[in-house]
């Protein structure tokens, strides 16, 4: 298991993207799979960082990478409430934050094998992303 922790700042999302893409390449994933991994992990981290920002907290965002026999599981945990607002306003024309989260969740659901958001003990959410290894 590899664990990263970043301050809840937008500048660090790109760092996570680079690190995880590099881990993916090390497992011989093809370019498309690495791109999917980058986009999905970046979306989950963006949501986590903005979630903390919105909640006014300064809690770090943690990213856990676990490699199993036939899959990779990435868990991104925050202390915010952004996923609760998903679907408040689905209208794309609103351009609001919940419209962005709705797009983000659509991307996550489409790019990973399995995507789940669970509440965390003590507040916040944990997003679990499962990628196939083959």
């Amino acid at each position: 298991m590899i664990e990263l922790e970043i301050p809840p700042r937008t500048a660090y999302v790109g760092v996570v993207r680079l690190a995880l893409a590099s881990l993916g390449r090390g497992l011989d994933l093809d370019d498309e799979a690495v791109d999917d991994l980058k986009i999905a992990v970046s979306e989950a981290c963006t949501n986590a960082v903005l979630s903390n920002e919105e909640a006014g907290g300064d809690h770090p965002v943690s990213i856990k990478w676990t490699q199993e026999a036939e899959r990779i599981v990435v868990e991104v945990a925050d202390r915010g409430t952004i996923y609760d607002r998903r679907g408040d306003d689905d209208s794309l024309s609103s351009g609001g934050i919940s419209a962005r989260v709705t797009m983000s969740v659509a991307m996550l659901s489409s790019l990973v094998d399995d995507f789940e958001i669970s509440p965390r003990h003590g507040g916040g959410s944990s997003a679990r992303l499962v990628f196939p290894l083959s």
Partner: protein
Amino acid sequence: MELGLDVRKVDSYSVVDVKGEIDVYTAPKLREKLIELVSEGSHDVVVNLEGVDFLDSTGLGVLVGALKRVKAHDGSLSLVCTQDKILKIFKITGLTKVFPIHDSVDEATGNDR
């Protein structure tokens, strides 16, 4: 991480050539540039995404916001993109139905005929 933004005029269109990664950190820079263009009277905008390596939901939100702004002035916003990995994002989110997406700046500005 830098986002390159170059603006040029092609006939009545303002073409924004974007280079780099559009994510939650860099998207505000693109948003500012597009707001500036519209407020200066450029209502027909082409955003060229051929030099973009990465696009996230924040970038999509900026493009949707810019589309709203130009539409309020009876203008247009179209995109140039041929990269599968970027097109995939527009397809997944259903935005291929919202934005005209062209293969080249010439096509977007009607200079391919």
